[in-house]
């Protein structure tokens, strides 16, 4: 049959109309689109009943209060807790990822032992118990304990173990709390420093990164939030003095650039101007302090700190004008500062009449230890871990036979990290209680997995910087993995096996005793409530002018450039590394692939003859790192900023091998007068790669 042109066209038209009318192609397309989006390897949602539990974060150094959303028994979201004084409706970028961190690939899932060939082999808890009892038994009298938990009662158990079965060497990982405690003790104060930011109308943060990493930052930010209605003039002024326009400077009304390590001098410059304006304080050595401050004229302070004398004068004038001014001195990267810096800050608060005053600097009561032979908080704060490691390195002190680490990662987080790892190598047996396979775990002979804060019963007692005495519990809200054991009970039992008498038989008993010592009600705490107290310790502080004069002196730095580490809570800590969701917070020109970018201002770049993206080598006697250049104008001249939290050699694919660890460049020095180890000034030389 011949098909003519007309017939062909009719056929085509018929087919077209048929295709349009029949649902088959559309159904197939629809099926195809559904099928191609229902791939079995894409996870599906699992429904369940939603419930909420209030607790506190043991993961985030801000100790933020939080509400955990559970679906069935699975924690799925970490939400702010309006009713918790350490949250007040806010959450930190680190704690908000805590539910996901439960499934971090870096989690240690079972006890691990280092085999003869250096590899780790999984062992049972029975084997681990036997090995631990044998090794610690043999090392009795020479055991040191190191804790990375600043606020928990676990420190009492560990310090009691160190006192009774060891050489009395219990150390906390360095934070801002130790120099603050040392400063307060030197000035004759008791208790713990608390800053009532919530009730202050002018907050001057000298170095202290109060809106990012310093102290209970989420509670500080709640005060910041309350004082600044949208688009209106702020009710409270925030001023930040530091080398970098960091998060605090970004939120502050004024940024006063000062060189890293000169915070104390800046504070004395303020003191000079306040005294000149008639400020005084009821302290025996006021006249000695007055003569010390006399020397810190605006011109001299400007020369040392690199600031502008007029800006200094304006800040002093504003402090005098404010009703409840408050000065917070600290480190812009959360560690390494000297006691002198904090002392100078306390001195300014004394001149402003801010001691134990609403919106001022408070001396908060500290509960006595509840575990027999445990160190008091003051004794713990007096122990300087970096100094101990330095003494071992110098051969001035014998390395302990055994070291017990609890949620501490000194192999990554201490200054001169590689050197510190070498010193740890001198310790013949090392055991770590850890959640994650961190750099320190990779050096240990035995790695014991402990539950995360969401899976265990734990406590938080007055985090450093908070303006009230506080006590609350972290309650277990998620089921604990099968082969993980809570460290509290385990260490209590271990201490018993080593012949220590703790006076308590279980971890819960420790916490109950602690609650009682704090005057808190246990049942109420277990319901998720928080105990706070307005009590203060009476203060009759001296200026410790002689000590201050020595400790505040700024030493000449190595090289022509200074390093200012930048600590962002969202990028994680040494204990957590970078949480899987949080590497997206790293900015484009902070890290590219595995390559680190460091920032400097245009003038510094011109001085070095480098441009954006150029490769450079930053080095000093402690170490050397390779990086590329980013230009950011919010940095002082001759200063480079390096993001902290990078350069991990352990953990998981989200952290390992990314960038470089700035701690390699931070050289340990010792503060004149107090002898405290300090690393807030790192001088470097920079060359083109």
């Amino acid at each position, binding site marked *: 049959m011949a098909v003519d042109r007309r017939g062909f066209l009719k056929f085509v038209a018929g087919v077209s109309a048929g295709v349009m009318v029949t649902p088959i192609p559309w159904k197939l397309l629809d099926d195809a689109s559904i099928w191609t989006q229902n791939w079995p390897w*894409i996870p599906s949602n699992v429904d369940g009943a939603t419930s909420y539990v209030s607790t506190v974060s043991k993961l985030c150094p801000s100790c933020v209060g939080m509400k955990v959303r559970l679906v069935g028994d699975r924690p799925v*979201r970490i939400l702010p807790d309006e009713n918790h004084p350490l949250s007040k409706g806010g959450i930190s970028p680190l704690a908000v990822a805590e539910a*996901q961190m439960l499934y971090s690939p870096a989690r240690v899932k079972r006890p691990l032992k280092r085999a003869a060939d250096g590899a780790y082999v999984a062992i049972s808890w029975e084997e681990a118990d036997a090995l631990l009892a044998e090794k610690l038994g043999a090392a009795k009298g020479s055991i040191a304990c190191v804790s990375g938990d600043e606020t928990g009662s676990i420190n009492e158990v560990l310090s009691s173990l160190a006192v009774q079965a060891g050489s009395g060497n219990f150390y906390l990982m360095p934070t801002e709390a130790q120099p603050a405690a040392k400063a307060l003790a030197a000035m004759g104060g008791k208790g713990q420093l608390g800053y009532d930011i919530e009730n202050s109308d002018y907050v001057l943060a000298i170095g202290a990164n109060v809106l990012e990493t310093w102290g209970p*930052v989420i509670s500080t930010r709640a005060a910041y939030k309350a004082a600044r209605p949208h688009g209106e003039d702020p009710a409270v002024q925030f001023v930040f003095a530091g080398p970098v326009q960091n998060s605090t400077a970004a939120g502050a009304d004024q940024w006063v650039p000062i060189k890293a390590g000169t915070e104390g001098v800046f504070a004395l410059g303020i003191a000079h101007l306040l005294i000149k304006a008639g400020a005084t304080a009821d302290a025996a050595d006021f006249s000695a302090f007055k003569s010390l401050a006399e020397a810190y004229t605006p011109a001299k302070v400007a020369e040392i700190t690199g600031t*502008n004398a007029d800006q200094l004068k304006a800040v002093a004038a504003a402090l005098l004008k404010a009703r409840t001014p408050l000065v917070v001195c600290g480190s812009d990267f959360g560690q390494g500062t000297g006691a002198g810096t904090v002392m100078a800050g306390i001195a300014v608060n004394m001149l402003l009449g801010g001691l134990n005053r609403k919106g001022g600097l408070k001396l908060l009561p500290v509960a006595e230890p509840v575990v027999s032979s445990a160190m008091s908080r003051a004794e713990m704060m007096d122990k300087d871990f970096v100094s101990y490691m330095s003494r071992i390195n110098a051969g001035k002190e014998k390395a302990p036979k055994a070291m017990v680490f609890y949620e501490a990662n000194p192999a990554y987080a201490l200054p001169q990290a590689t050197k510190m790892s070498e010193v740890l190598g001198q310790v013949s047996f090392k055991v770590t209680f850890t959640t994650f396979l961190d750099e320190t775990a990779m050096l240990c002979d035995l790695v014991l997995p402990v539950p995360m804060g969401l899976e265990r019963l734990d406590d938080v007692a007055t985090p450093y910087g908070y303006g009230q005495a506080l006590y609350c519990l972290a309650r277990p809200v998620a089921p604990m993995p099968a082969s993980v054991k809570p460290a509290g009970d385990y260490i209590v039992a271990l201490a018993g096996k080593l012949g220590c008498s703790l006076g308590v038989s279980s971890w819960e008993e420790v916490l109950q005793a602690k609650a009682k010592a704090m005057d808190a009600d246990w049942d109420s705490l277990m319901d998720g409530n928080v105990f706070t107290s307005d009590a203060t310790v009476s203060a009759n502080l001296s200026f410790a002018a002689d000590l201050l004069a020595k400790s505040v002196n700024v030493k000449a730095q190595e090289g022509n450039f200074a390093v200012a580490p930048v600590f962002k809570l969202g990028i994680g800590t040494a204990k957590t590394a970078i949480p899987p969701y949080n590497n*997206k917070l790293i900015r484009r020109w902070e890290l590219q692939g595995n390559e680190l970018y460091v920032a400097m*201002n245009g003038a510094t770049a011109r001085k070095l003859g480098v441009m954006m993206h150029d490769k450079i080598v930053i080095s000093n006697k402690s170490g050397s790192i390779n990086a590329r250049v980013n230009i950011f104008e*919010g940095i002082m001249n001759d200063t480079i900023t390096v993001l902290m939290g990078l350069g991990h050699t352990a953990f998981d694919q*989200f952290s390992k091998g990314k960038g470089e660890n700035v701690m390699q460049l931070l050289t340990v020095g010792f503060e004149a007068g107090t002898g405290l180890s300090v690393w807030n000034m790192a001088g470097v030389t920079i060359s083109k790669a």
Partner: protein
Amino acid sequence: MQAKEFKVKWGMAIDIDKCTGCGACMVACQAENNLSPIEDASNKIKVMNWLVVYELSNKKPFPEHDVAYLPRPCQQCGTPPCVSVCPVIATDKNEEGGIVSQIYPRCIGCRYCMAACPYHARYFNWLDPVWPEGMEKALTPDVSVRPRGVVEKCSFCHHRFMMAKDKAIVEGRDPEALADGEYVTSCTEACPNGAIVFGDLNNPDHQVYELARSKYASRLLERLHADTQVYYISRREWVRRQLDNYLDNEKVKG
């Protein structure tokens, strides 16, 4: 094009002066909306982020330099450029509340919407979403996981809107007259600085109503007339100036 009007119009007023760039909103958004983590997050082309915090600079040298941070969710345009270009109507602005929808099973991944969006608020799934083993247990039951090959974007946590409406209906209240704060996005809730205020732009009882009318409030690329539902507030003129392409001699609001 005339913006479609709704009785309820959900919107934000973000105070740039209060944002310190911590990123809590970005992480909260990912956890709430089941975005997957990525090993190399420095590859910004392939990173999925419904909300990004941008860094702004006044471009002056030290010491006159100033910095600001701008959180950028989907702007939920009144006349959304992404909607008109979608060949399969996978995105639409039709529901009371004025949220621009994104229907993942309908999306064919052509990415016209991404090209049309002036705010870079849309993201294409170049890769399969992969969670480390076990982490899928922390997925919320509220938002489905999107596969490779589709475009996604901020939905103003639409599931929270649905839940708030359901709650109102169960309690016998009008679901279109939710009280201020009854429905907020995850980023709003997380921000420790309170930089984000969320609410009904048409309801004088909601805080955002007044804030959107502040002399310091303006919108991103306002002169494109996309009529966005996200307002930015800053007392700093240089910040407001950067929200659109102003000439040096042009004046900005406020």
